[in-house]
């Protein structure tokens, strides 16, 4: 491979970033790109700047480039080897920083990090060595950036593996104390995090002394690698430590020293420090939270969001043990002030508004996760948060929401006046909608109206006025019909008493049926009919006037003045809703008449046909049945799909759409592979084979023929609690890599609890003999006629799953088989040029005798056995082979391996290791 130019790399990096997966697929999924990247990183012909940008690929996409820990380990090793010879010149310090950060990222994210990994041990000792250069004494200030990166990398390790440095707290602390240059921030964050993790883990373990922890000066706690995710703020409530007074004193001096220096850190670092220490104090019950008191004034006055948030978090954690009632009132007033401070950007003000709705009160009444007003937030205090027309839409709605809550939860003239003002404000938003206000203004008004209706829907007078405004708007702009329908639907969902949506429907119906029917028809009539179709669903609204309106339309149609297909369908959708939602005795007769009219007089034949169909339904079915037939998702619905196309476009869309399944219902369970039924050939029929026969057979076995495929069987199970029948089940398999040919879909006509669960056989065609994982998704239709898509647990194809026995002649005698194996063995002799390789593997002394082990795992692949030596031959599709000779020697078992594809060796040794575990 030749070295690429910097430009060519720049281009590659851009393409890679635009679509990493696609890029790697196009580049061939094996490690060529990675190899090239690593090679050029150590090339001297590539500039530092290019190398830095090449490293960003490993920094941001390590798991794509290094699919498993082994590769991660190799990459980290190779990068460390690059780091070592780099001179410590300031010019190279940037590249060295990147290398440090990238090595850590690769080791952590590929899960290669651990005590057993050489690269991890080297990396850690390098970091600790770099970090030990306190106050630039060894390397001078030019190397400070590298030291910052080293501290940060150590911090990230501690963060990912909580407790890793828990036995070195004292040495971390002394570094933190001694460092005076601005790098002290890195040491402080590292120490405070390690302290927090150590204390939380100590509390969780429930044994050990705090003083020992603080004085710890030993090695690394490698076992922490298993702790990932173990330390979370969520578990704070259950932890506590009660150290002795002298230990508490010791801790207190550590905490005060850290807090006293906290103002020297950047705000985001300060907030981290405070949060770490707060968690420590929260767990150690003998330490009073008052230790934070000295920091509070500074935090209350800050303009920085991270610091203010830190004080709110302290408040949430310690409530009245740190914040007096006076502090609480003060903080709340401050927060209200900040939520409307003209100097702050509006996203931040919205955040503070949200904080008000989840304000950590000293004596909380609500659950905390729901929006709720703090008791101290009175209408007087909140009045400065009144929305105005000059707010951006987000701010306006957020304020409207908050103010509505305030007025709802308080009583008295102030709250009443507040409701009046809010209402006035909502109405003011309507003016731009009627005029030239665009989509934003329209959306804003309807959202404000929705909020108002949600909170004040039970106030008939105001809601009546709102209805009037909405009706006026519709009169001016018929294209608002979808917004109005949406408002009706949404308010009906949230209001306990749907009186208002009903009365709005009635008012809109009144307006619509009174509209003069004048050309141009198409646009406005379409909206009217849509709206009436929605109104027809309201059982509380008398529909006589709607029918009258429709009759007028049909008469016009009969007279040839209108009557295209579209209008006809819209008209019929109203009829359909009437059929479904209005009890027939009330209007059966009138509706039947109308449908008959349509079926006879409407100019469009399709419309006539459907009208006739509805007429038949109406005249033949009882009310109950009619409702069931037309109900969305009803059983018959699926069958009448074609005729309901235009009846209700939303339902039609629902039937056609693939919905995500609410919960996974299906499971593929692996069936034990069928044991090959070998009919042993009677010894009498065995015969020897001559040398030529053996040679031919060996050639036949090794030559390329049509690649073998794997067949894996699974049972498809229904895991739902109430197994319903599923139809047209289609299972799709998606490969996680290119090791296999695409797997064809599998179709199951019906899955039902009453039938035995079906057995599916998957045929896999490997391109490379590696284990893999297949993502499985299922597409199915339920009894209600809706189609769902659901994700199943991925299928694991393990390495032994791809083993196939060699097609050996059945009737050869033992000696010939030995001979055959030996011939195979020598043909796979590694000659240095091909892919053949030989390897050795040792099983330690095991409980089981070797024979039992072989019978248990390799029976189907055993070619010959002689004097405790087992000769095993395995075919790996598409056309590779593995030969094993296992021999027990001095308590251990020696397995000699030959293969014609050396890349399978790691998988094979992993498997062999597993066999004896």
């Amino acid at each position, binding site marked *: 491979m030749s070295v690429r130019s910097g430009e060519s790399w720049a281009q590659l990096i851009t393409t890679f970033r635009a679509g990493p997966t696609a890029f790697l697929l196009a580049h061939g999924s094996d490690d060529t790109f990675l190899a090239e990247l690593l090679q050029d990183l150590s090339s001297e012909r590539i500039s530092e700047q290019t190398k830095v940008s090449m490293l960003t690929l490993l920094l941001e996409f390590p798991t794509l480039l290094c699919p498993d820990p082994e590769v991660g380990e190799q990459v980290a090793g190779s990068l460390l080897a690059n780091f070592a010879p780099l001179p410590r010149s300031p010019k190279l310090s940037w590249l060295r920083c990147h290398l440090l950060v990238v090595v850590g990222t690769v080791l952590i994210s590929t899960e290669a990090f651990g005590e057993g990994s050489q690269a991890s041990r080297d990396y850690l000792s390098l970091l600790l060595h770099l970090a030990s250069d306190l106050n630039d004494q060894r390397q001078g200030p030019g190397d400070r950036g590298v030291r910052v990166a080293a501290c940060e990398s150590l911090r990230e390790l501690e963060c990912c593996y909580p407790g890793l440095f828990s036995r070195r707290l004292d040495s971390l602390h002394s570094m933190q104390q001694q460092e005076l240059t601005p790098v002290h921030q890195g040491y402080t964050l590292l120490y405070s995090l390690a302290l927090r993790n150590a204390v939380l883990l100590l509390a969780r373990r429930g044994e050990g002394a705090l003083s020992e922890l603080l004085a710890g000066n030993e090695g690394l706690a490698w076992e922490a690698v298993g702790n990932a995710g173990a330390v979370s703020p969520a578990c704070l409530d259950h932890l506590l430590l009660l150290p002795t007074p002298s230990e508490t004193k010791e801790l207190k001096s550590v905490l005060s020293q850290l807090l006293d220096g906290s103002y*020297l850190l950047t705000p985001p670092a300060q907030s981290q420090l405070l949060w770490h220490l707060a968690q420590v104090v929260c767990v150690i019950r003998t330490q009073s939270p008052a230790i934070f008191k000295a920091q509070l004034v500074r935090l209350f006055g800050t*303009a920085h969001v991270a*610091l203010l948030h830190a004080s709110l978090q302290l408040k949430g954690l310690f409530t009245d043990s740190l914040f007096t009632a006076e502090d609480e009132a003060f903080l709340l007033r401050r927060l209200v002030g900040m939520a409307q401070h003209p100097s702050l950007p509006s996203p931040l003000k919205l955040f503070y508004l*949200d904080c008000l709705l989840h304000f950590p009160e000293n004596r909380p009444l609500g659950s905390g996760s729901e929006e709720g007003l703090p008791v101290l937030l009175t209408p007087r205090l909140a009045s400065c948060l009144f929305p105005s027309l000059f707010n951006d839409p987000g701010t306006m709605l957020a304020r409207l929401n908050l103010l509505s809550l305030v007025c709802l939860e308080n009583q008295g003239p102030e709250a009443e006046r507040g409701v009046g003002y809010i209402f006035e404000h909502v109405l003011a938003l309507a003016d731009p909608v009627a005029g030239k206000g665009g989509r934003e203004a329209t959306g804003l008004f309807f959202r404000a109206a929705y909020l108002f209706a949600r909170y004040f829907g039970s106030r008939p007078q105001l809601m009546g006025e709102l209805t009037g405004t909405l009706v006026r708007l519709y009169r001016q702009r018929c294209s608002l019909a979808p917004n109005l329908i949406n408002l009706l639907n949404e308010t009906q969902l949230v209001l306990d008493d749907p009186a208002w949506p009903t009365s709005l429907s009635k008012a809109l119906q009144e307006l619509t049926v009174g509209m003069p029917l004048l050309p141009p028809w198409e646009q406005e009539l379409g909206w009217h009919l849509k709206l009436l179709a929605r109104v027809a669903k309201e059982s509380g609204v008398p529909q006589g006037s709607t029918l009258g309106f429709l009759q007028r339309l049909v008469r016009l149609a009969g007279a040839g003045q209108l009557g295209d297909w579209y209008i006809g369908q819209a008209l019929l959708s109203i009829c359909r809703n009437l059929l479904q939602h209005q009890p027939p005795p009330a209007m059966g007769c009138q509706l039947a008449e109308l449908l008959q009219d349509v079926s006879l007089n409407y100019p469009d034949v399709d419309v006539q046909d459907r009208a006739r169909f509805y007429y038949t339904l109406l005249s033949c079915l009882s009310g109950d049945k009619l409702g069931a037939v037309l109900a969305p998702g009803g059983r018959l619905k699926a069958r009448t799909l074609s005729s309901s196309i235009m009846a209700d476009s939303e339902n039609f869309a629902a039937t056609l759409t693939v919905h995500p399944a609410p919960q996974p219902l299906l499971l593929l369970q692996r069936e034990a592979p069928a044991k090959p039924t070998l009919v042993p050939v009677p010894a009498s029929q065995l015969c020897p084979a001559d040398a030529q026969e053996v040679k031919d057979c060996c050639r036949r076995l090794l030559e390329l023929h049509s690649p073998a495929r794997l067949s894996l069987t699974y049972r498809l199970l229904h895991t739902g609690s109430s197994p319903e029948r599923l139809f047209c089940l289609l299972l799709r398999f998606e490969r996680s890599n290119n090791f296999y040919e695409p797997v064809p879909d599998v179709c199951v006509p019906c899955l039902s609890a009453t039938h035995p669960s079906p057995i599916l056989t998957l045929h896999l065609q490997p391109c490379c003999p590696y284990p893999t994982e297949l993502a499985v998704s299922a597409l199915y239709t339920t009894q209600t006629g809706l189609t769902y898509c659901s994700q199943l647990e991925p299928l694991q194809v393990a390495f032994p799953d791809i083993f196939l026995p060699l097609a050996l002649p059945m009737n050869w005698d033992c000696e010939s088989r030995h001979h055959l194996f030996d011939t195979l063995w020598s043909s796979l002799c590694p000659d240095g040029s091909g892919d053949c390789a030989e390897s050795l593997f040792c099983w330690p002394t095991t409980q089981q005798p070797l024979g039992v082990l072989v019978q248990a795992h390799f029976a189907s692949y055993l070619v010959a056995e002689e004097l405790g030596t087992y000769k095993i031959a395995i075919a790996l599709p598409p056309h590779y082979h593995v030969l094993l000779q296992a021999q027990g020697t001095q308590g251990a078992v020696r397995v000699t391996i030959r293969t014609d594809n050396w890349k399978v060796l790691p998988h094979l040794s992993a498997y062999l290791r597993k066999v004896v575990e």
Partner: protein
Amino acid sequence: MALRGVWLISYEQGACGTVLFSRRYPTVEKRAKAFNGASYVTVPEDGVFLKALLFELKLTDRDKNFVEYRDSCSRINKTSVYALPTGGDLWPVLAFQKSGLIYVCLPLVEQSLKPRPPLISISGISQAFALLSGLLVFINSSQKNEAEMSAKVGQLPSLLMQACPLGTPLDTDLNGLLDNIHVSTNHMQKQPVWRISTYKGKPQVNVCITEKVKSMQYDKRDVADMWQVYGTVTCKCDLEGATSNVTVSLNLPANGSPLQDILVHPCVTSLDSAILTSCSVDVMDDSAFSGPYKLPFTPPSDLFNLCYYTSQVPIPPILGFYQLKEEELQLKLTVNLKLHESVKNAFEYCEARIPFFNRGPVAHLEYKVSYGQLDVSREKSLLVWVIGQKFPKSLEISLTGTVTFGSMSKEQPVDPICSGSTAYVKLYFRIPDYTLTGCYADQHSVQVFSSGKPKISTSRELISSDYYIWNSKAPAPVVYRTLFF
């Protein structure tokens, strides 16, 4: 307290967006997987992310009138935090939009995402806010053309590598990281992290108080007029030595208005709680603390905002009324402005702009001004009354006139609020060396603890911002509501 990814996206109306910059943090991602458990949603590749973001910000399907997922009235974003539909719901994605750019960040949530925890309980959320604010300031500071913009975007990978190398923000002031030079000095005590570069040269300290005044005047009995003052104190300290300390005291004269809602820069080392007690949400109180407001700090090397404040002053600097009546085919207008006698009558500029919306171009204008001069803008939709540097001795000026309009055309400005006779006059002015609250800082109120005697310069100014006078003869939007009279 970490971030899973940061994105900078350019978006122009009607076009699809482009990812200008993105950075993801795989080690944080690994923690997210562990913390979020079953509710974990992976961060998709940039293309998918962009699509989902534009969808969620309601920037797709612009040609369609009503689309339920976008326009439904129950979809209300009360914060700038979004859930992106990318397979699962990727949450909490923080996104700001500003001048054609979208700043996006995804903080780590250290618990399950179902049910969604309140934002206040997510430690990373404020870090995300801080980093995006820093990014926003960096991109918008002195950036004029496309080349400068792309140069800035080009600097982002290296800046983010310093500010947030492994997903945990270490610093959010990106401008401060630009000239990050490490200097060798003998440190006797710990240095503040933000004071990195050192200045060589003549020591000087510059303090500037900028007050802005907003006003909404209606000249109506039932609607209260509103005015509000808010100030920013900016500082630039060019001092040698890494540990110099400065104290700035803001003073008020005897009749000054107390400063409220004071927010200070994080470099301020300590605060007297009395400074913070006054809050705009409280009812005004004569006993309020009225200074001096002492702010001790260790200065960063760049220009920075030392503090922000608001205040309630008893009067607006200019009180006016605007009467506009539609008579047959013409508009009759009267504008009257009066400068309060306590306000310094020495402007750098002062003008009143009278815009006309939803009408044709000005075809004919007859007017009389008692002072200054009146111009019609080139687009013929705006009258500009240039008042100049001073009000006359009477401090009161007026304008009367009649305007007729041509027929409405596409080029004329449209405004949803100003329909019918709803109209306003907007004032633009700047008064140097003056503040409405009276707040000032002088030579004596800046103390510098550092070697050498620095040159201290102080200045102040009052600038109008959103200063509206509404037509009192028509309905006007009310912005200020008090529940108490």
